[in-house]
């Protein structure tokens, strides 16, 4: 996963995608493109295909509340409803789409869960910072989908504490203390407290787990850095730029690949070979 973030020579996506746009067919994890809400009708289509083939597998997709304004989301809800597709449509309402508050997606008039009503879908609105609520709602929706009772739209009401990305500064558009004033708390802390109250967990265990996770990420990062980091060499071979555009390389790409090869020899003489 960290190889993918670095777009290095160990990245199984061959350095072609922005960070965290993972893909893992092995885990039934579909790669999103980075365009907005396009994954929603695709998930419905996947679910329709599963139903067409008499498969028991279901699809789930996630979209931010801001992107529900896209036509694709409307298409997804319509198709899910019309074909009773075994799909869960999750809306992560974290209240901020970069600098635009959820009102720009219509949140001042109604909830996102309420959208379900107009399509005749089941709609749930849950505390997205309550891990148990998320689990229960998802399990309920999955069961519904599996037993052919239809699609469910779940609004996860939550809060984006950090910026949209590492290049975003939220203090430029919202109050600096808003994050502290958010009443529903950090979901990991809440689950921790709950488990401690049940006697199933302790502060010590939690601290240990935190440390282990941090170490694991650190170690993986160090390991991945051996494969290079973006912009500092050690990418996939140049010829991969032209691969997978089509199943077979057409003549025009073959010609362009020759030009790229020539340029490489001039721009980076002596570097790793073309293929």
């Amino acid at each position: 996963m960290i190889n993918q973030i670095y777009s290095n020579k160990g990245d199984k996506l061959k350095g072609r995608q922005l960070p965290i746009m993972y893909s893992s067919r092995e885990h039934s994890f579909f790669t999103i493109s980075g365009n907005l809400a396009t994954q929603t009708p695709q998930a419905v289509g996947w679910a329709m295909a599963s139903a067409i083939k008499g498969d028991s597998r279901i699809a789930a997709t996630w979209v931010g509340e801001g992107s529900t304004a896209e036509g694709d989301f409307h298409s997804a809800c319509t198709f899910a409803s019309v074909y009773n597709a075994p799909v869960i449509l999750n809306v992560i309402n974290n209240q901020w789409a970069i600098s635009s508050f959820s009102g720009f997606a219509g949140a001042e008039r109604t909830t996102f869960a309420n959208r379900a009503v107009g399509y005749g879908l089941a709609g749930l609105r849950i505390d997205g910072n309550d891990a148990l609520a998320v689990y229960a709602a998802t399990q309920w929706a999955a069961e519904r989908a599996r037993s052919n009772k239809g699609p469910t739209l779940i609004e996860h009401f939550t809060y984006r504490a950090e910026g949209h990305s590492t290049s975003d500064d939220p203090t430029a558009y919202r109050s600096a203390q808003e994050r502290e004033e958010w009443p529903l708390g950090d979901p990991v802390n809440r689950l921790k407290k709950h488990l401690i109250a049940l006697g199933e967990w302790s502060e010590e265990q939690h601290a240990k787990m935190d440390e282990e996770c941090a170490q694991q990420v650190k170690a993986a990062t160090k390991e991945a850095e051996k494969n290079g980091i973006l912009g500092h060499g050690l990418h996939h071979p140049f010829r991969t730029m032209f691969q997978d555009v089509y199943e077979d390389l057409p003549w025009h790409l073959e010609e362009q690949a020759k030009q790229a090869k020539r340029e490489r020899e001039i721009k980076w003489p002596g570097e790793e070979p073309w293929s």
Partner: protein
Amino acid sequence: MSGTKTKATGAPETGSGETTERRLNMIEAINDALDIMLQRDDDVIVMGEDVGYFGGVFRCTAGLQQKHGRTRVFDTPISECGIIGVAVGMGAYGLRPVPEIQFADYIYPGLDQLISEAARLRYRSATEYIAPMTVRSPFGGGIFGGQTHSQSPEAIFTHVAGLKTVIPATPYDAKGLLISSIEDNDPVIFFEPKRIYNGPFSGYYDKPVKAWKTHPDSVVPEGYYKIPLGKARHVTEGDQLTVLTYGTMVHVAEAVCADKGVDAEILDLRTLVPLDIEAIEKSVEKTGRCMIVHEATRTSGFGAELSALVTERCFYHLEAPVERVTGFDTPYPHSLEWAYFPGPVRIGDAIDNLLKD
């Protein structure tokens, strides 16, 4: 037919070694291809607005739902974005969807799903997921369809890395190319020239309409056969000039060349991406003159690409500047359709220009 030597496609390989003299129009040929592919491959599904119960506004899917069932052939909501979007998901699952967009003019709401999703899925997932869909859509004018039922937007798609664009011009080709497109593992835009669904059109709008049954390429054998993508067809062989064209304009160009007594070599490109550059080079090198004919608007049309390729690759063989005959850069007019259409007069002028020295 002075000057042109029409080359019939001839008896195709069917695998069984037998051919049947059966004449179909383009609609029937397309229907036949879909029927065969639905039968051969359980992963093929056909969907679109009005394609199921009704059988399509042009009847291309008539009878298919009755034969193959409602889970294989079905109607969709009026949402091109949704149709292409779910087709991407179905492709990722492992199906081979054949969505129909009722008119090419309606395809624009689906562009994001085509350009950013279907066309890029293989690349961005490093082959983990593909979008092996064939988007069928009737395109082009000549039927008094006005601005929203007449457009030829092929150049929008040829500009997109990862898409293939296929345009048949005869019933025989429509069937073989559609089967190839459906079996292709890349997303294919399959534009059907609707003006010639029922008969080849000469471009002389005031003359009686011909039916396909008198045309040699309306002989469509039964059963499975393929025409490879990326291979042009020689409509006529000739020495005076090369005509690069596709779709309806193949027939218009052929009629005009015949009427003018020009010994033209007409290439029906059949596939725009990937393009049969070899056939183009060979022909232009032989004739030294090249006319490109398409119905789409001129600026940044596919003719611009063809003209650039011919100029780059055959410049020293050219005896005259390349001529482009196209639609005008206006919205497709309704009442002035025949003033807009690149018909015999416009093509005739281009031929005269090419041959004047």
